[in-house]
């Protein structure tokens, strides 16, 4: 009795698997033989087939409005990103130049502070602190200016993108 119930379960399991992927030759033969001899399983499989056909018949179509709104929003965001990138380009380029310049000149700046410190008999800690101030000041000033200019850089990006999309 238990074995028969297990056979039905196995048949249904194999049938479900057959709907999703190919079965091994052994499993396929077993299923075919079982279905020939078992009317209940044949009917159960037919019901499953009907249910899948019904599921496939469900049609959901995206409305024009949703699609157009989505396209407009995505396009606007793309344009906004592009405008912002274009505006930020000079800042990135100048930052890159500044970094390169800093990398090249730092040893000379250090040496000049070192020489001046020894020449003027200034304590080491003092000229080293002076060096740090001189080293950080341009970067800090640049960052402050960038922050100050930021509203001007980003303003109008949204309007410009909207105009481009329209």
């Amino acid at each position: 009795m238990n074995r028969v119930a297990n056979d039905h379960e196995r048949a249904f399991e194999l049938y479900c698997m057959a709907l999703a992927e190919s079965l091994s030759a052994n499993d396929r033969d077993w299923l075919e033989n079982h279905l020939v001899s078992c009317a209940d399983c044949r009917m159960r499989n037919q019901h499953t087939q009907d249910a899948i056909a019904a599921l496939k018949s469900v049609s959901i179509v995206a409305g024009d409005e949703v699609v157009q709104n989505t396209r407009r929003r995505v396009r606007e965001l793309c344009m906004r990103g592009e405008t912002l990138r274009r505006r930020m380009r000079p800042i990135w380029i100048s930052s890159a130049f500044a970094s390169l310049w800093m990398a090249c000149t730092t040893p000379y700046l250090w040496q000049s502070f070192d020489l001046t410190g020894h020449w003027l008999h200034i304590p080491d800690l003092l000229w080293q602190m002076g060096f740090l101030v001189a080293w950080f000041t341009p970067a800090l000033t640049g960052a402050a200016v960038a922050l100050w200019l930021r509203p001007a850089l980003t303003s109008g990006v949204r309007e410009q993108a909207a105009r481009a999309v329209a």
Partner: protein
Amino acid sequence: MFLAAARAMEWTLRENVEIARGLRRRDPELLDRLIERYQHRLLRYLVFLTGNRELAEDIFQETWIRVMERGTQYNGKAKFDTWLFAIARHLVIDWSRRKTAVSLEALQEQYGSEHAFDVPANSKSPFDAVTERENRENVEAALARLDTLHREVLVLRFHEELSLEEIATVTNSPLSTVKSRLYRGLASLKPAFSEEQL
């Protein structure tokens, strides 16, 4: 036959790479084409997943914005639709978390009884129209009763025709889990549907 399949695969791979390049550039033309191409499939998946059309439409928009923002993460190795569905799925999970639900199963309780799945009304004879309406109601009821995770696997397999491996990628689950969900989904769909038919 084999040659044709190989060519189709090569074409798909090339197309995926093109999509990946376009997404990295945030090419608006490409995004436009993708939205046009996948609009119905994506919305259908979301409606099946959430059981709520309005919510699905909101997440539909968010999905495409996320595609634009995270375009650099798509490497072109996997199929684009698999990646797209995975993004949509994550957004649904995020939404359900925001609503203090724990996981996708919670959506079942919130929207399970609503009939959001519409079968299109074609111009048929009155008898066919009545039969079709009854059939539609049966399908809606059977789908609404299904557990979200099972419904998702059934839809991805039989509606979107993804392979089991692709479904595993979308749902971020092991292949054995996908198989088990498919089996359980079919097992629970069958009685619901056959009872409705009687």
